[in-house]
């Protein structure tokens, strides 16, 4: 499979996850807002987080949809998933109770399932970044070779 195709598939999976998650939160905004305000570690900044998460997810999805901004989108996806997973890890380890602030079908997962689900997406984002970098480097080398060949031909023909 071409590296570019792998990056496309990973980007599509991330876009699906982020748009679905963002819309689920926005469609049940009151519930999401209340659940987040109950979260022991972010109670004080829940008013900010409640908007920042869905907006951030939508912005990352847009960056993944546009070819030019896709590499940045992959890095942002990786860091966002890392942040979510870190939060789940802290909640599982230190929180006395676990209010779920996820939306849609994702809310039917347990916190542990959610943790491993996120780990899988961290792995996917990382794979996407690696493949994107390899693809970009190969393209640069290919362009340089083509330029050299063109120069060589020009010299040979005497243009």
């Amino acid at each position: 499979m071409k590296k570019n195709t792998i990056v496309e598939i990973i980007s599509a999976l991330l876009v699906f996850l982020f748009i679905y998650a963002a819309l689920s939160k926005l469609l049940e905004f009151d519930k999401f807002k209340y659940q987040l305000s109950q979260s022991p570690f972010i109670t004080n900044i829940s008013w900010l987080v409640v908007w920042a998460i869905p907006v951030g997810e939508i912005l990352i999805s847009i960056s993944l949809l546009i070819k030019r901004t896709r590499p940045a989108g992959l890095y942002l996806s990786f860091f966002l998933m890392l942040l979510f997973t870190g939060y789940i890890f802290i909640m599982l380890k230190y929180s006395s109770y676990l209010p779920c602030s996820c939306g849609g079908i994702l809310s039917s997962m347990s916190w542990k399932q959610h943790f491993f689900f996120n780990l899988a997406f961290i792995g996917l984002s990382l794979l996407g970044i690696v493949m994107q970098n390899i693809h970009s480097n190969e393209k640069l080398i290919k362009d340089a070779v083509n330029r050299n060949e063109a120069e060589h031909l020009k010299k040979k023909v005497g243009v």
Partner: protein
Amino acid sequence: MKKSIPLVALAALLAVGSAFATRLQVQWWNVNNPIPGRTPGIYQLSQDQVKGFYCQGVDNVECAYLISNPIMIVKKP
């Protein structure tokens, strides 16, 4: 590249559709309190019929108000 752009765009469209479809998905709810015309029991309700909220102190149990009758509390069995 021309092939790949529609794939990501298709994923975005699917996600939008799925998010709205999940809201219409029917779930089983245990109606604890008596509702006029209904006896307490387990009913099938879609997510647009209930307004969910967080049940303090109870993990993995969802609580919600019935939109048609806001004083009633329903719980997932």
